[in-house]
């Protein structure tokens, strides 16, 4: 049996979610725009999910727009706010620790006549310098809520106070169902919370000036066109209301970190706020070598390093909290879920101990 510890990347579908989805993949396949019963059923299911998600976020159903996921929600929010409010200004503020779907959108906007400030964070991963960065041209502040690499939760209430009338958007894909979220626009998705992939939502507070971004048949209250992905939407709604066992996950994390103390010379990077994220630097070993070795033992984790994708650029978020490029290359990330057990953690720590010893023996440092 494999041990899955990469829940910040994606999660296993909860059986309850799957059960809720199946009828909409089989007999209830109607197009929600159709007026006959099969269509009406689908429409009803969508509105039920919208309500479930709205209640979890403590907002109104009409403020939830379904999208294809976190990346689309971030694209929609930032690009559309930028172009819909261009008459007010062309300045956007974000941070150096955002997900690529925020950073790369901002970089593109810079080629379209917008100016972007990328804020630093302090050594604890909290955003700094927002107040000083705001100008009379600032139209949007976009700041990640729960950090996917080192688990910091930003204080959105304090940030919104500083923003005043300037719109605040937050990428809350990691924190949704784990923390209350407060912003004018909120990006969330299903597959980080035991729901299906390919479905997300954007919360848009009533009164925010934003135009539709994906044009077409006028779905989602003329805000996001495209035939609704009914089974996924139903799965998303269900995944929002299932028991997330946040305290259990936090206990597991504390237990894990405690067990890690058995291993010489490793360092935990922050990893305090979010209940499921553990970032650690293992000096003298390259991250991918650890991930590969664990994979051979059936344990799935992620690197925080240059080698984790097709890009060889060191992870910018880890540099931003003060790790040097060498440390970034020696950093791995473990992310837990309610399906993990202490037994799995014991096994992982034992295997890690052996791997680290073996790899350090052949390291030149």
């Amino acid at each position, binding site marked *: 049996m494999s041990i899955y510890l990469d829940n910040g990347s994606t999660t296993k579908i909860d059986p309850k979610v799957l059960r809720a989805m199946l009828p909409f993949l089989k007999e209830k396949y109607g197009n929600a725009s159709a007026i006959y019963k099969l269509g009406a059923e689908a429409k009803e299911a969508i509105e039920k999910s919208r309500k479930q998600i709205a209640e979890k976020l403590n907002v109104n159903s009409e403020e939830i727009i379904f999208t294809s996921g976190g990346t689309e929600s971030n694209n929609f929010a930032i690009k559309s706010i930028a172009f819909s409010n261009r008459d007010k200004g062309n300045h956007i503020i974000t941070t150096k620790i955002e997900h690529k779907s925020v950073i790369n959108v901002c970089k593109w906007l810079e080629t379209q006549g917008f100016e972007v400030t990328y804020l630093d964070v302090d050594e604890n991963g909290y955003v700094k310098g927002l107040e000083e960065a705001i100008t009379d041209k600032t139209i949007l502040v976009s700041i990640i809520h729960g950090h996917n690499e080192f688990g910091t939760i930003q204080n959105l209430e304090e940030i919104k106070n500083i923003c005043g009338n300037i719109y605040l958007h937050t990428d809350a894909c990691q924190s949704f169902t784990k923390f209350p979220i407060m912003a004018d626009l909120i990006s969330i998705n299903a597959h980080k919370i035991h729901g299906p992939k390919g479905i997300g939502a954007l919360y848009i507070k009533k009164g925010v000036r934003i135009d539709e971004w994906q044009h077409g048949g006028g779905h989602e209250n003329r805000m996001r066109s495209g035939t609704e992905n009914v089974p996924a939407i139903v799965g998303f709604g269900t995944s929002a209301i299932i028991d997330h066992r946040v305290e259990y996950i936090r206990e597991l994390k504390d237990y894990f970190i405690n067990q890690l103390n058995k291993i010489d010379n490793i360092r935990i990077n922050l990893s305090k706020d979010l209940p499921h994220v553990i970032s650690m630097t293992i000096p003298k070993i390259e991250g991918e070598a650890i991930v590969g070795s664990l994979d*051979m033992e059936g344990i799935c984790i992620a690197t925080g390093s240059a080698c984790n994708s097709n890009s060889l650029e060191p992870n910018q978020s880890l540099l931003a909290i003060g790790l040097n490029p060498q440390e970034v290359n020696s950093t791995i990330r473990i992310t837990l879920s309610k399906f993990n057990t202490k037994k799995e953690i014991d096994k992982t720590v034992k295997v890690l101990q052996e791997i680290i010893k073996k790899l350090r023996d052949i390291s030149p440092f």
Partner: protein
Amino acid sequence: MAYSKKVLDLFRKPKNAGKMKDYDGVGKVGNPVCGDVMWLYIKVKDDVIIDITFETFGCIAALASSSIITDMVKGRSIEDALKIVKDDVLNELDGLPPVKIHCSVLSIDALQEAIYDYLSKNKKEISEFLERRHQELEKERKEVEVKYKDWIQKEEDLHEE
């Protein structure tokens, strides 16, 4: 992972790993900032590389490339060893993902630097090719040092504390 069985086998059980005492030449290439560091030690007798070991900080591809180059070189003459090119390493490994090709290059660099070190220590003739390659690697190393001088300085400060 998109690695060949050969690469994964070598990663799991690398051959000739570890530091060598009484080596005749050592090649140190790569930079931890960029992700991979490879040190190759060689023992030479009558212009034949009779022993070779490696120490590597790096990813799966870097560790497998280090291991394979030691196997390919052991028992061969210096002249023969210098004929090995990147594609030979890639063939032996049954290929590497495109983004990891540089790891095979690194193993060739390490080997050539180890041979350069041996030849220059023993005041032996160094070919124009080997000298040029050595100069290029030195230049790259200095460029990385300049690019990351703030980080390197920070490291040194930490050591002094």
